[in-house]
């Protein structure tokens, strides 16, 4: 299994760095392009939540991203150092109306990932968002094209 961990301080400039790092890892591991976009989007949503709501742009707090790939799936964990309650996040099934400017992040993560769990970090402040993306449906899509 190929795996990697990235660590970022909670400053907005790291949004672009994170995007490039995750994109490179997925490309290096031959993830199909349409699947790559879904993973990048879901990871980006979790990263933005960690940056803005959990770590509140505190440059002393870290956001960690763990990525792993095996034959069947891609796994992504996003860890913050904030005070959010994982249960309330997991149950946050807000469906924004199209005219709302925010509140789409958790809903998008739910739609893009095949499995999502929200849990408290072990022995540390913060939460972990763990997502699994199955390769099967994307590989089938590419073959049928």
């Amino acid at each position, binding site marked *: 299994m190929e795996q990697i961990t990235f660590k970022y301080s909670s400053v907005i400039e790291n949004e672009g760095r994170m995007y490039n790092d995750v994109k490179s890892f997925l490309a290096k591991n031959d993830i199909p392009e349409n699947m790559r*976009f879904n993973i990048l989007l879901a990871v*980006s949503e979790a990263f*933005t939540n960690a940056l803005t709501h959990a770590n509140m742009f505190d440059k002393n707090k870290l956001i960690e991203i763990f990525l792993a790939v095996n034959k069947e799936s891609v796994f992504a964990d996003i860890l913050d150092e904030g005070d959010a309650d994982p249960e309330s996040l997991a149950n946050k099934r807000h469906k924004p109306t199209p005219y709302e400017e925010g509140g789409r992040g958790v809903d998008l993560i739910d739609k893009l990932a095949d499995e999502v769990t929200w849990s408290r970090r072990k022995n540390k402040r913060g939460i972990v968002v763990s997502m699994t993306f199955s390769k099967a449906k994307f590989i089938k899509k590419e073959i049928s094209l």
Partner: protein
Amino acid sequence: MEINKREDGGVNIIALTGRLDLANGGLLKEEISNLLKEEKATIHLNLGQVEFINSSGLGALVSIMKEIRLQKGRLTISDLADYVREIFDITQLSHIFEIFSSEEEALNSYQMVGAK
């Protein structure tokens, strides 16, 4: 993100290149806000070179649309890549934006409205 501006037949065209996310969404909002201050509220966004958009970028577009409508202007969008279009559909934003397949088609629609 790169923001290129030009004007064609009274329509302010903004072509975006790169990522439309939290940081860049703020830059785009600022750019549009400057146009609105100059009472330029007829705006077309060409998203053809946008390689990535997330909910922060979508939120910026919703905010921009509301500002433009408050000024009784018009916002059109064109050239969405397939995966960007898919995100508009998933979030149901394709129902509230005027989306055209090409910039030319969007600009023609302004002429048709103007001709009425």
